């Protein structure tokens, strides 16, 4: 998943938790990057019409941005579910975060052929636990 899609997904999830714009600080923390890097990327996404940014408030996805964010979240859900159910990885959330940048959405679509994903995906994704609410797996503490 490319960097832009990782940001869009993060903005979508942070917006959901905050019930409003995603602050640069919250985004930087979620993505493990510096606030300066987050700001720079938000600027680029704004230029591409995917995000609206309001100073001191944060970033809000445009309809186009939200569509891409939901697609990216679906790719991420496939990866988490694949790691948890097929490879039986206990720390599937931490590993999904590590592997996400290397896994293209076409690869995830192929992995989707062997997992049992629910039709309401990605609406069942829980932003605070960072996992699908319907995934039958233990959720160890995240670092």
């Amino acid at each position, binding site marked *: 998943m490319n960097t832009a899609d990782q940001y869009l997904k993060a903005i979508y999830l942070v917006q959901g938790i905050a019930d409003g714009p995603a602050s640069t600080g919250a985004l930087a923390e979620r993505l493990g990057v510096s606030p300066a890097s987050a700001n720079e990327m938000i600027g680029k996404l704004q230029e591409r019409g995917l995000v609206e940014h309001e100073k001191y408030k944060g970033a809000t996805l445009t309809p186009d941005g939200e569509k891409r964010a939901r697609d990216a979240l679906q790719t991420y859900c496939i990866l988490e579910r*694949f790691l948890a159910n097929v490879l039986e990885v206990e720390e599937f959330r931490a590993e999904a975060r590590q592997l996400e940048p290397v896994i293209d959405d076409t690869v995830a679509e192929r992995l989707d052929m062997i997992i049992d994903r629910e039709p309401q995906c990605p609406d069942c994704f829980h932003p605070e636990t960072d996992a699908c609410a319907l995934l039958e797996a233990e959720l160890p503490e995240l670092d």
Partner: protein
Amino acid sequence: MSVAARVDSDDQLARLLQIGIVLEEVVEARAYQHYQTLPEVERDAAIEGLLAEAREESAEHRRRLEALIDDLDAESVPFEEVEALVSEQYARNHPTDFDGVLYDQLNGEETAYKFYDDLLTAIEESEATFGVDREQLMTTLAEIREAEARGVEAVARLMGDRA
């Protein structure tokens, strides 16, 4: 986490190789399913040859990836497990005619090519020392990637012949 596409550890590399093995197993198992379920009227020597070759090639790639994983002290996912998962889900997403089978094979080969290409880039981006010889790792992955490219060409040629 990091937004960078880079492989930083043996664990991460082993996990990605496991994903590669599963992708190969999906191609192999689906090629077998296609072969079993394609209606008689849609069959010919070209498609049967293509599916047989795809299965053999995926099995060969799987064995090469498994050898790398062994050196990293990780385990592979048994083919039988993936084969069972493919069979379970096959009913909801299987092609029913010649063109559909070819498209599925093309998709499998293209996806595998993209996966190995991204993986090679992510390894090149890293300065980590792995538990497997880097040159051997890169050579193996590059050779598999080239085989996938040839696979894409073979399917595309067959599609062209049928058009």
